[in-house]
């Protein structure tokens, strides 16, 4: 068993010595990149591109550090459970295999938060522009040319403007944007501007001011919630990782020799696997919940 471990280390050392460190990393990154291009869905590729452009995606060095951390931690934890190198290697592979999924969840969260940020900029600025231009399309043009929006919202606003001129009506532009960005604030603001354009402008100053206050309250709520959830998430992960070490407590209570005797039984081995898998499942499930629900509305 030890032989296999030494063999793996030896292969890595030989590979590393034959190439320079940078080349070895490049080789790994290239291979991972090829696999990613092959299997990652198109929508996720777009999301990841944007997250990269925002500077929020991990660098290859950070990914390498994450892989090493996951591999090391899973090896130590599983070895503490089973005292078996083969089993530990299997767990190391499983732990590394989870990393792309975590990256997927993280990118989706960053992207959703970014889109919400842009949406609140879009709605707030359009309302403010409307106060000076008294025209929805002119307001959109003002927001677009001010450069406060980034893609994909900026290009969608441009598309709205083009559609409005092409159709001679803002209805299609609004439907286009509502369909792409299903947020209450977007729907309500568009509905109001549609009414103003179709039915004539009443005294809308107070209404638009109230709408701005609503957006401010929403943004404040979302940010506050983000801070709360982030601190809770941190504790959740720490707690989950600490739970893996509960087996150490058992070993202290029983003594190492008794524990080694205990894990000779198949039933005990099954229970130990179930404990690790259940703990990992809850951690992943919590991670998914945290990243998927960003609270925008």
């Amino acid at each position, binding site marked *: 068993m030890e032989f296999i471990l030494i063999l793996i280390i030896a292969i890595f050392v030989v590979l590393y010595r034959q190439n320079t460190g940078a080349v070895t990393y490049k080789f790994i990154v290239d291979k991972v990149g090829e696999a990613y291009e092959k299997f990652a869905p198109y929508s996720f590729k777009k999301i990841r591109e944007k997250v990269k452009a925002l500077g929020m995606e991990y660098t290859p060095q950070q990914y390498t550090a994450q892989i090493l951390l996951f591999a090391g931690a899973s090896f130590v934890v599983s070895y503490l459970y089973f005292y078996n190198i083969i089993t530990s290697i299997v767990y190391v592979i499983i732990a590394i295999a989870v990393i792309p999924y975590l990256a997927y969840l993280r990118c989706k969260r960053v992207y959703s938060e970014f889109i919400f940020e842009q949406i609140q900029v879009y709605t707030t600025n359009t309302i403010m522009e409307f106060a000076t231009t008294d025209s929805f399309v002119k307001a959109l043009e003002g927001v677009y040319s001010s450069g406060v929006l980034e893609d994909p919202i900026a290009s969608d606003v441009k598309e709205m403007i083009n559609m409005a001129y092409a159709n001679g009506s803002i209805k299609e532009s609004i439907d286009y944007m509502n369909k792409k960005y299903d947020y209450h604030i977007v729907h309500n603001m568009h509905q109001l501007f549609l009414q103003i354009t179709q039915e004539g402008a009443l005294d809308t100053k107070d*209404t638009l001011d*109230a709408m701005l*206050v609503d957006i401010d309250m929403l943004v404040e*709520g979302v940010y506050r919630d983000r801070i709360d959830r982030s601190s809770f998430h941190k504790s959740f992960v720490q707690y989950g990782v600490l739970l893996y070490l509960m087996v150490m407590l*058992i070993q202290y209570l029983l003594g190492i020799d008794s524990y080694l005797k205990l894990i000779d039984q198949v039933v005990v081995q099954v229970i*130990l696997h179930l*404990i690790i898998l*259940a703990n990992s499942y809850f951690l992943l499930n919590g991670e998914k919940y945290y990243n998927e629900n960003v609270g925008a509305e």
Partner: protein
Amino acid sequence: MEILLVGVILLYILQKNKKINSERFIKDNGNYFRKLKEEDYEFLLRSKYGDDVDPDLLFDKRLRNAFIIIVVLIFLFITQLKFLNIVAAFVAGYAVFKSPYRSLKAFYKKNLHQINLQLPYFLKTLEVLAQHYTIPVALSKSIDNAPTIFKAGLTELVEKINQGDSSVEPYMDFAKKYPVNDSMRMMRLLYRLGIGSQDNKHEQLIMFSKSVSALQNKARDTRYKERLQTMENKTMAMLGVVGGGAMLLLLLSMIQSF
């Protein structure tokens, strides 16, 4: 066990060939069994499946399933029939009888919660429409984009208004259909907005808008708290399962040492 299997197959064949009717006993004694029906059972059924549902038929199904469970369990225990086993069979039958009711109640509770969270957002849309239209027109225009949960109530409300009912009743019926926090107050406010003169409509709308915004904030806070609670529950579940596993291991080691 073999006798039980043969019996089940025989009963199935007789039932299929209409030689016997297992539901006749329930139908004949329907009046007595109806006393077991919960007071709010029909209301809960209608709120889930609509008005077309037949509560009696579904109640008979509940009874039939409970009877089947009792009979099957008694047959299973037939070689060692004790008082305790008979009680256990009846308890299992009762649990089967009650389970659809419990799931209906859970659905209604969840539904009410959804209504509670969605009502402020729907009222906000209505408020925007009310800027340019009268309240009845705004209500009918809101139907298409309203959350599915409100569509039936809204259609009913608009129909009553169109039939000439200008009282507060249709609005109150809507509030009763969706009995959540503030629905009565908001529907009364909406009614007053509808009958008020156009001169002070603007001021009334601003007041309505402020109330809706406050409701929206409340719903938002509830939603955020619930999400944190969900994460807390996940933490507790994780502790429970991993801690339970560790306890089991300790127990096994104790058994081994004896």
